[in-house]
């Protein structure tokens, strides 16, 4: 009897030890996946794909297929999704643990596969503008590593890439990638970009930062500066016309924005009521978002947005400590908010309280399009 009790105890002890060992192992794998980083110093696309003979969306499709060819069939099936409204709407500003994304996670890819995935992003975003496009994406990911160094659940490995529909230069498909503080949804039809929205970008911290020995300038520097310059160009009369009451703790058209509707009634100051100085700043404030896409491919939509400037409005909220004429006094505190709302384009920029770094603000932005979001879905 005694022997059996000892035997039973020994078994239970073994089981419990096994259980804790298993838990420990789990922790290890998750921490190593969050700390995986990728160099952002160059676009890192030495051409082994043979796609460089192409340009524009032909090159993108070539690189997309090249990426697919590096994957196993199981991996492929998680990347190739159908082009449905439900899939297209599944983007988010939240950390991936709160809002699961479509596609394959970067941390699950081998270095060859990851390079092929990043080459797709590179071809879509372009490297034509400093601090925009590919460089911005990689710096936002680095910022997530920076957050990950302070709190678990963040990291450059937690980003996803998916193709909705089959990448081709003849049919309709959508490139969708992102993770925390990035959501890119670009739709192609017959080899041309027909929609570059919804586009969400954000960053915490709101300053530059250093991680893994590399020092980065804040990836949204162009965006915040352009918006500050716009608000700073308004006279106090223009400012009072542009101001809306109410508070923004975040952008309005960010997800759960999958269920929201864009206001059809425009608020704030009309383009036609602005001084020519301010009018010029409106276009300059839209550019940092458009410039996140490869310029040749974004050209058509860019021309549309420019032609629609006369029907565009600007409104802002909070900015209680701002001084008319001083650009840098805008967008400095939580709930400081600005919106550009045109016949097509819709851009919001909002300062939020920090989430990981609680004593400072961080930035959330979103670009939408009144008629091109989820085009035809």
């Amino acid at each position, binding site marked *: 009897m005694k022997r059996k009790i000892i035997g039973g105890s020994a078994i239970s002890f073994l089981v419990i030890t*096994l259980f804790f060992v298993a*838990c420990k192992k789990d922790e290890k794998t998750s921490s190593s996946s969050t700390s995986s980083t990728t160099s952002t110093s160059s676009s890192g696309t030495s051409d082994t794909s043979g796609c460089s003979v192409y340009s524009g969306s032909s090159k993108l499709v070539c690189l997309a297929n090249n990426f697919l060819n590096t994957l196993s069939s199981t991996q492929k099936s998680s990347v190739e999704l159908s082009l449905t409204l439900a899939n297209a709407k599944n983007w988010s500003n939240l950390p991936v643990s709160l809002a699961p994304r479509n596609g394959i996670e970067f941390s699950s890819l081998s270095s060859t596969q990851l390079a092929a995935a990043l080459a797709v992003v590179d071809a879509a975003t372009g490297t034509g503008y400093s601090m925009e496009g590919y460089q911005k994406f990689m710096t936002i990911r680095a910022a997530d590593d920076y957050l990950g160094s302070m709190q678990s659940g963040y990291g450059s490995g937690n980003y996803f890439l998916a193709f909705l529909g089959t990448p081709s230069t003849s049919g309709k498909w959508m490139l969708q990638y992102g993770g925390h503080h990035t959501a890119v949804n670009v739709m192609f039809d017959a080899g041309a970009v027909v929609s570059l929205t919804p586009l969400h970008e954000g960053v915490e911290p709101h300053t530059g930062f250093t991680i893994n020995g590399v020092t980065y300038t804040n990836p949204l520097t162009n965006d915040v500066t352009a918006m500050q310059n716009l608000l700073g160009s308004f006279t106090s009369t223009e400012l009072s016309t542009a101001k809306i009451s109410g508070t923004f703790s975040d952008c309005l058209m960010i997800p759960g924005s999958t269920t929201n509707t864009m206001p059809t009634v425009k608020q704030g100051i009309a383009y036609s009521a602005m001084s020519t100085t301010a009018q010029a700043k409106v276009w300059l404030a839209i550019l940092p978002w458009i410039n996140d896409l490869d310029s040749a491919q974004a050209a058509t939509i860019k021309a549309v947005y420019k032609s629609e400037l006369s029907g565009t409005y600007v409104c802002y909220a909070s900015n209680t400590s701002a001084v008319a004429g001083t650009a840098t006094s805008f967008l400095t505190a939580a709930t400081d908010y600005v919106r550009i709302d045109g016949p097509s384009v819709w851009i919001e920029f909002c300062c939020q309280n920090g989430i990981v770094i609680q004593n400072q603000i961080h930035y959330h932005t979103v670009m939408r399009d009144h008629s091109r979001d989820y085009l035809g879905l």
Partner: protein
Amino acid sequence: MNANSLHFSRRTMIRRLILTTIFFAGMFLLPVHIFAHQAPYTAVFLDVTPDRVGAEFQIPLTELEYAYGHHVTQDPATLIQRLGPELRSYMLLHTHAYKDQAFPWKVEITNIHTEQEQQIASGPPFWELRVNVLLIPQRSEDTRQFMLAYDGVVHQVINHVIFVVVRNDWETGRSDSLTSRSDPMTIRIGSDNTVHPLEVNIKRGNLWTGFKNMASLGMEHIRTGTDHLLFLLVLLLPSTLVARSKKWAEYGGIKYSLKRLLKIVTAFTLGHSLTLLLGATGLFVPPSQIIEVLIAVSILVSAIHALTPIFPGKEYYVSGGFGLIHGMAFASVLFNMQLHGEILVLSILAFNIGIELMQLLIIALIVPWLFLLSRSKGYTLIRVSGGILAVFASLAWIVERVSGTPNVMSANLQAVFDKGIWIITGLAVFAIVNFCYYTLRRKWVLT
């Protein structure tokens, strides 16, 4: 049971060791899924009964502060002491319900408190204002279709979103949860930059569907109520054995076992029925944390009893006594549903029937294997390792429930019991293999 099975050969011992280890280890190496909601949106949970609607508002304080001010995020634990009456007025000002706007429903705040919520996966804990409200029609209107005119926070915070879900619908048993992919109703600013009332429109049901739903809720509660199940199972582990000189000895025979089993289960049922009745009617509602801790203690006590008889022959007193405690936990489910009058009586009856059915089903699934196994000495291994595991599980729960934070072990227990059918299958296979082995062996020895 005779001399030839009194001692194990070394090989048998090792075989058993491996089998039992694989069996129990398998239970723990399973993934966990957690769902919760996070700031910065408001969640509204509706509990719809035929004559009134309960609504629980969960409002993140950071968002409330933007709308209401008064530094509500500072010292949230004492917020209600500081601003209780003012917050009640704020809620009443922003909460309205009606079928016909000319005859608004009565809005009654039944509870207001602050609570700390844990963000999943990452982020610091955050505080919420929790407000329970009753919406009561004043003109014998039904509650299937009505307008909810609530604009708390969103009257000021333009991007704020209020998710509304039907948490309980008595008539149809609809029970929606709020997860990252569920499709809740929303109150938010409209395309005209104003906030509009939400139309809540629920499919009709009737008393019979309501009754059935309460019964299946009772069944579900036992099926997923890991702690209730574990208590019962651990109490049954030694029920087929005879206690002799403060040790569990041999199998007591079918009649002995069945009689003891019946007594234990009946006592448990009587106990929990009594407190379920008291609790669901609101006559006796002890704090849930204490009950949860006591339930874990009940598992610990019965697990120790499975290891070594501490109250032999008195199991039914213990199961009856602990039944009283488990009943209080069952009652909290019903109490939170804002039930009332005849609906409440029907619900208690149906819920209890559901609990009984599920318990009997589980006993029927498990007890035959215990009978089969307890004839052989190998049963000691199952009983002892089961008992020791239950000791650890109950200790993990006690720690979790006293401290209010999950630990590695308690966090994995639910996932383990979700695979209950495999545990039972494993037990059955083990019992049959064991039985065949002994039958064959005895035959072989005799011939």
